[in-house]
């Protein structure tokens, strides 16, 4: 399972950070940091990963695989 971030759509609302704090961070500048860019999501993070994609308010996250 991988997640792709559509940077054009992302507005930095930070809902993904609440849903999956191990995967996402809104940094001090207000920008989204995704810790698994282009990488497989670890098994134990799959539930929060799915939740982050479902709750992204602007559909900027997509699940692949």
């Amino acid at each position, binding site marked *: 399972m991988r997640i792709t971030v559509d940077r*054009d*759509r992302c*507005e*930095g*609302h*930070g*809902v993904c950070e*609440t*849903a999956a704090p191990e995967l996402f961070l*809104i940094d001090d*500048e*207000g*920008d989204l940091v995704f810790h698994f860019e282009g990488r497989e999501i670890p098994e134990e993070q799959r539930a929060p990963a799915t939740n982050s994609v*479902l*709750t992204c*308010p*602007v*559909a900027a996250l997509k699940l692949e695989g």
Partner: protein
Amino acid sequence: MTVATATPTSDVDLYSDESVLAPYDNYRALRGLGPAVWLSRYQVWAMARHAEVYAALHDYETFSSGSGVGLSEELNRVMAGGTIGSDPPDHDRLRRVIGRQLTPKALRQHQDHVQHKAKVLVEELVERGSFDAVPEFAQKFPVSMVPDLLGWPENETGNLLAWASAGFNALGPMNERTMSGFPVLKGLWEFLDQLATSRNLRSDSWGANLVAAVDSGEVEASKLSVLLGDFLVPSLDTTVSALASAIWLFGHNPEQWRKVRADPSLITAAFNEVVRLETPARGFCRLVTKDHELPDGTTLQAGSRLFLLYAAANRDERVFTDPDAFDVTRHNVASHLAFGHGIHGCVGQGLARLEAHALLHELAARVEHIEVGEATWRRHNTIRGLAALPTTLHT
């Protein structure tokens, strides 16, 4: 259009005074009838369950916004082509021009200003003790701030609330509320056209940045008045509704207010819970672009319109336990659809949160108990909100 007899159908009038003032039993009944229900009075489909509304919002190709998102063709003809009434790729271009100014990151520079204004207002209201929370709190705050940030001409703010109200009424059917709003809306459109021509917008404001986007060729000059309207109209009535509902809900649920006071980190969830339970904009429509079959076998025919009832989805018992209760510690409150969801998700939600969080923080720091008197609700096609709310703050 012919509809098969097995189709879930309802003749409920979601726009009667009774239904507007007490909508939730009707929403529950619609959820119970099926994943989509044919509203025979208005000749549209309605979705009232969370899963279906969510899925439709995320399938913008099947459920298009490009021909408008209102119930009547009269309004849809006018609104098509704006940010709300468009599909990708046009939508994404317009959305970016507005959206980049309203991201939580972009709003950070206004945070101190907003917090200060919240402090001043709350201190003044605490001093006064008793007041009507609709004009003196819920309307006063956004109206004192948003036009200023937009760079709006200072002497032209008198009609803003009437324009916003008429704009949202017009999303409904061609009833008396919509009709009486059309002359008001005409005034708004004329004013926006003038403003797009005169460009009388304070420098370094959101409005001035829209002008710059036109000058750089990013968007057509013909879109400027629409973009100014898209920025202004949705920013007022919805926030006004949410702020007044917050006072009303905390007034009726003092134990929830005590929880927020004891742990102000609950304010984010509390505001989500306010807009889940008393969703400011009841919903928007989509045009079905190709036949779409639902799990129960119902087929939504290409060319039909579909009303997505956010306010009903937000009380769906399939998703929210004890859905009619106000609970600031609700674990899955972030799943609400009050701001819509997906590519058309409310572009101003960061601003709405900034305003509401600032006010709730100031109230929580000072007010022990919120006492509310008899509330009067608005008779409005789209906005669920209070018309009057006698309030007393006890410190």
